[in-house]
């Protein structure tokens, strides 16, 4: 392994297990270091890739054909006006690009949602229940239709719940409880998969990954324990507010 690989392994292990130290329940400097290092680098990364997009895609577009692409120049000016938001005296100028971006973003986001989020979903819920010969298909279709209807009634807030509506409301609530149990399991599956993939990087191969991981974890746990028990004032000084 070269110096780059060693450096990456060392600092990534420090960052990872520094963040895991939050699980000890004690505020500690390892967590503070890892947290601040991650936040600082993440901010820098966002800046670099966003600015790179401007220089890689937008500026060449203007340079290749300024006559045809002059509106892109106005886009750049509006983008630069956005930077005036940092000063209180010029914040009103920054509202113009914010308004354009917000309006465009919400319009773009909502126009297609009408089809994908409402029409297609309603169409997919209108399933055949008469003249269906396959018993299982009938059960599945009925399940989907009834689940959607009952859960919808659970979200009626402007009508008094009485009679059949109240029964449907209760059934909707029970369906939601079942669904939340399912969602919890799916979420757990996802996060567990992430943990496994993540830890595999630090546990295999035995050398140097596993060896370095065990060493660093021992140092962090012992030092945090000692600071917490023997030097609580120093621990308080070393952790942020």
């Amino acid at each position: 392994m070269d110096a780059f690989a060693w450096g990456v392994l060392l600092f990534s292990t420090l960052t990872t297990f520094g963040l895991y130290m939050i699980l000890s329940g004690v505020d500690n400097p390892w967590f503070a270091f890892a947290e601040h290092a991650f936040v600082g680098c993440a901010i820098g990364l966002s800046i670099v890739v966003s600015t790179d997009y401007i220089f890689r895609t937008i500026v060449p577009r203007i340079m290749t054909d300024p006559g045809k692409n002059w509106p892109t120049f106005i886009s750049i000016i509006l983008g630069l006006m956005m930077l005036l938001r940092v000063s209180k005296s010029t914040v009103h100028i920054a509202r113009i690009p914010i308004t354009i971006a917000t309006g465009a973003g919400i319009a773009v986001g909502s126009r297609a949602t009408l089809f994908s989020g409402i029409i297609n979903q309603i169409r997919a819920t209108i399933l055949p229940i008469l003249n269906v010969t396959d018993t299982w298909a009938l059960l599945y279709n009925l399940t989907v239709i009834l689940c959607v209807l009952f859960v919808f009634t659970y979200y009626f807030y402007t009508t008094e719940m009485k009679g059949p509506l109240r029964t449907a409301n209760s059934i909707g609530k029970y369906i939601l409880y079942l669904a939340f149990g399912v969602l919890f399991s799916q979420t757990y599956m996802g996060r567990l998969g992430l943990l496994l993939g993540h830890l595999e990087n630090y546990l295999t191969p035995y050398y140097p990954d596993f060896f370095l991981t065990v060493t660093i974890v021992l140092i962090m746990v012992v030092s945090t324990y000692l600071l917490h028990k023997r030097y609580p004032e120093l621990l308080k000084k070393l952790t942020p507010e």
Partner: protein
Amino acid sequence: MSVMKVIANIDRRIYYGAVFVLTAIMLLFPIGLPLKVSPEVKAAYNMIDSLEPGDIVIINFCITASGYNELKGACNSMISHLFSKPGVKVIFTATSDQAPIMMEEIIANNGELMTGHSSYPYYEIQGKQYGVDYINMGYYPGLFKWIAALSADLRGSLGNNDWYGIDVRQFLDSNGIMEARDIDLVLSFDSDDGAGDFMRYFYLEYGTPVMQSMIGVMVAGAKVEYNAGNYAAIVPSIRGAAEYQFLADYPGFALTQMDAFSIIQFFLIFLMVLGNIGYYGYTRNHKEAKK
């Protein structure tokens, strides 16, 4: 001190330590359990298997590092499978700022450096050469706004230069990639809703099929869209990734992690039972006695 009281008051740090130790043991000493393949993953496999020469595919990475460790099994096996299809041309894009480095890792995992080159992007994947069969356009900010712009003006939104500043107009022109309707398939690896946006601006407008491999939190929503016919296929989270690797005969991370996955899930079930034993054996009686 009664056993029930101990069970009801176990320090949560013991749970954390147990999860960590179990994970480490199962990752270091896997067993090798059999796996069943679900219909959704089979459909995804068939979708990629049915690609023909001349088809243009966009592979979009909308994942952050948190999603990457969950989906890298799917990324490696699906991309390897796709690149094995002769004559298929690929455009890599990213709608997450952390994704470009992961794309490079996936490409390096599945390819070898081309002759005469010593670094990115010149990797050859299953005989497919960079700049001839595939390009890496890198990250574009704006997520759904950029995807909408891509749908309206493909060449303008992609630009002429790839992530490394190399001019790719010849690749785009020679493969007839002029507008959004020329794309034949979109495959999106998501920890945000990249596939959803491609579905709204590519599938709904041009009928381009969209496939998604997503993190666990998004599985429920993805199944809704798949059931409504908005997605052509889905590969849900690490379980779907393992099933895909099994189908594609690709020995990878997701398959080897299934043992640890099983044990930790059973540990959670054990804790749920233990929690109830502690509750009924001590906590409930203790609360009633207090009243």
